[in-house]
């Protein structure tokens, strides 16, 4: 699928000298922190997201066959995606799929660099993760540091037979040798961009948006 570029972004890449520094983690891509106007492009709508989750569920089944899997979402939005995925998987496979949450905050490698983060839910399904096929689920794959932390956290919970990774969006710019097994959509991005995933469970809407700073050569509206 061709990535449509808004007409305004004639120049590519980090838009202006005042563009904010690269985001250092996968979940900083929330809207609202911008100090300048930006161009929003909707990448996925509600129907696209539903189709994508269905497809990933089928891919997980195809890849793992009848072997049972355990889904672990990474808070915040990964948990909701994992629950949706588990619901689809259970429907397709005809038996329930265990689903849980794995908070990785205490395993981050940048704890000294940011103010203390609020911890999120951790809930490992009753069966545990020992010898299971664990699929980690997150919304956006970016630097890969969140997944690195998740792998460390998972190791402390047990010894899964296999660990796989499912993400709704892969936006590139990896800083670690990590890749996803199931990708909803690849989005080419620049460092200054934000990918914002909204899910109805907490955002009242299902959408994936790309936010790109307006280049400084473009008039900035009336503000």
């Amino acid at each position: 699928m061709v990535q449509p570029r808004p007409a305004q972004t004639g120049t590519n890449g980090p838009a202006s000298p005042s563009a904010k520094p690269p985001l250092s983690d996968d979940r900083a891509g929330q809207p609202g922190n911008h100090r300048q106007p930006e161009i929003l492009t909707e990448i996925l709508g509600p129907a696209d997201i539903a189709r994508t989750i269905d497809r990933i569920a089928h891919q997980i089944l195809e890849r793992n066959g009848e072997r049972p899997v355990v889904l672990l979402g990474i808070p915040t939005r990964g948990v909701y995606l994992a629950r949706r995925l588990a619901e689809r998987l259970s429907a397709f496979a005809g038996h329930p799929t265990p689903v849980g949450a794995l908070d990785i905050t205490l395993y981050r490698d940048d704890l000294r660099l940011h103010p203390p983060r609020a911890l999120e839910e951790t809930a490992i399904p009753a069966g545990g993760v020992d010898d299971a096929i664990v699929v980690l689920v997150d919304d956006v794959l970016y630097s890969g540091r969140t997944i690195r932390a998740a792998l460390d956290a998972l190791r402390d919970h047990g010894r899964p037979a296999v660990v796989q990774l499912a993400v709704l969006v892969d936006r590139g710019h990896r800083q670690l040798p990590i890749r996803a097994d199931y990708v909803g959509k690849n989005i080419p991005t620049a460092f200054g961009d934000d990918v914002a995933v909204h899910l109805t469970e907490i955002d009242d809407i299902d959408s994936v948006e790309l936010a790109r700073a307006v280049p400084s050569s473009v008039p900035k509206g009336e503000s």
Partner: protein
Amino acid sequence: MTTTVRPIAPAALPATGPAPVRLPRHLLSAADLDRATAEHVLSTAERIEQAIAGREVRKLPTLRGRTVVNLFFEDSTRTRISFELAAKRLSADVITFSAKGSSVSKGESLKDTAWTLQAMGADAVVCRHSSSGAPHQLSAWVDGHVINAGDGTHEHPTQALLDAYTLRRHLGGLDGRRIVVVGDVLHSRVARSNVLLLSTLGAEVTLVAPPTLLPVGVQAWPVTVSYDLDAALVGADAVMMLRVQRERMSGAFFPTAREYSRSYGLDERRRALIAPHGIVLHPGPMNRGMEITPQVADGAGSVIVEQVANGVTVRMAVLYLLLSGEMSGGLA
């Protein structure tokens, strides 16, 4: 697909979620915590408990490479072990320093001890001292974060946090809950910290003690004071018994231990007066048979052992919140 240009006026910049709640640089008094901060510590502790529940490896890599010094100028069993375990569970390096067997017994001053710690690069100093205000003084001399682990008859904020955590687990919220604190309030740092923290969290605190064991100025505290234990206990959500601190008593505060125990001890008859869902707390160490009978201490509704377990979790939360984000600037 739709494309829109969204100009954002600086004034309209929305914050992503609530502003991060930050602990003060040092945890010296329960009064340093406002309601939002205290609740943030308690929910962080809840999350930590969740994260390590049922695990074989109960260790987190969060404070790898950081150094926590336990500086204990006064005897302690559970607080010292609790802080030590909390720091170790977060992978910090822990040095425990007791006044006995250190240069303090050769006459080294607190200031020289502080400089030694400073030179060794302690990221956090957990301090217990028999003089009220010693941790406060220490905080002016070291760069690391100072945590008050009990100073004289002044405060013991992490004990109050673990009590609040225990209460919250059993009672849900603390808003409007009636907590009765009984005994040697005069000498109790646990009582001072608890009164401050529990009232910050919305609980109604009643102090019950003989008049000789109430501090001067207690009228100004956010509490109700009573001398009648039976009346105060009726329908209470929780009762917290305080240890009678004989070692701090220089005069005669009550005629005999037996008389104290008759008027202010918790036995099974009195235990039955509190609400059916009510719980019994004691910060330890207990004088069994004095302020609390063994039947009550070990009976239904007693959460005394759980308090000790919760102490580790709550102290992990405090260490995590104090020691992360140091290089992010803007420390309050």
